[in-house]
């Protein structure tokens, strides 16, 4: 149980796909101009990650090693298309504002990376914890970047006006360079957090 919990925590902080592994950045920076997009993208990503990892882990013994990549892609593409269809049917607004980035989950390196490095070698339970950890790790970073950018760049949070009426939005934060700046700040914050946690754990060991 303890190792499962550790796997889960890996994705959220220590091996956060965006802040530590720094993969899957392009779509992450592109959709984070509003909080609702961030949440939508995070949930879609978590769903695809969870189910692709589960399916691949269950069938890992029958997937021939030399044909594994095409099989992984078929499985990931199938789940991504399902998310796209369901979003179009039940959340048309969200689907419209996310545009092309939902179908592009297929080629997201986070999913490919986790599937190749983790799911194809591990059994069911660790895989569930890994995908949830990675998914939540991805989602919280998206929401944090999006909140920062939306509040400063547009004066709203999830579409609701939060800044006073005479606040002049700083357009820079909505534009791509603003995304990079916020991302860099968050990365350094995460490194600080990681070091701090490592220190306190060491202190505990000594005591």
């Amino acid at each position, binding site marked *: 149980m303890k190792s499962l919990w550790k796997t889960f925590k890996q994705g959220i902080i220590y091996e956060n796909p965006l802040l530590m592994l720094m993969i899957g950045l392009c779509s992450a920076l592109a959709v984070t*101009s509003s909080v609702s997009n961030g949440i939508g993208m995070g949930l879609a990503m978590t769903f695809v990650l969870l189910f692709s990892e589960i399916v691949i882990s269950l069938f890992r013994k029958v997937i021939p090693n030399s*044909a594994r990549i095409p099989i992984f892609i078929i499985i990931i593409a*199938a789940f991504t298309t399902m998310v796209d269809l369901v979003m179009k049917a039940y959340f*048309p607004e969200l689907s419209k*504002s996310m*545009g092309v*980035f939902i179908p592009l989950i297929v080629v997201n390196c986070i999913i490919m990376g986790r599937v190749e490095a983790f799911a194809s070698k591990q059994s069911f339970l660790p895989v569930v914890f890994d995908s949830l950890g990675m998914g939540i790790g991805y989602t919280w970073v998206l929401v944090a970047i999006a909140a920062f950018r939306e509040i400063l*760049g547009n004066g709203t949070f999830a579409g609701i006006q939060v800044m006073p009426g005479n606040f002049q939005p700083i357009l820079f934060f909505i534009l791509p360079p603003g995304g990079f700046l916020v991302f860099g700040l968050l990365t350094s914050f995460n490194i600080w957090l990681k070091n701090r946690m490592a220190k306190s754990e060491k202190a505990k060991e000594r005591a």
Partner: protein
Amino acid sequence: MKGIAKLGLVLAIFAAAACASLAVVYAITKPQIEAQDQIALTASLKEIFPEAVNFEDVTDKLVSKDANIKFLNAVLVKGENAPIGVAVKAAGPSYGGQATLLVGITLQRSIAGVRVLELKDTPGLGANANNPGYFVKKAEKVTFPGQFTGKYLTDAFAVKEDVIAITASTITSKSLTKIIKTAGDSAAEWLETVTADTSAETTGGK
């Protein structure tokens, strides 16, 4: 040889299973997606023409003058007893791919309203054309498509002159303006021929 055949077989089985499960999801969501499109279209039509009572399909009668801009759908909008305008669902190229707009034209050759139905563009930039909270005239709370309402087709429709562009999205602004102008012109031209013999058309009982 045997090895390759086996690999192919395994790959085929996975592909078939993925196809089957996708087909199920597609079949479940298809009616819902179509219903959503229809709801969005009718709602947009009602927003542009609040007094509309029913719609008559006139898709074949309108011809686009621009090879890149296609008219997917066109309706003659009717009020209680007389036609009040034309609405055209037009698609044309924009910055992030194809954009679909619904353009309403009144009998007075002015734009009754514009709605963005489909737009693949950069979130936060060009996608603001479709954002009800993004205003090109902040003080009056006028959105990008909103600024066309009441505009006469005799106007220039030139971005940065009589059309205000979306910040950092000049290409999107220009493409959308062109779609609106093309749809408006064709509709106005067709209206010309209809209103000349309105009595014959409307009492013709279609």
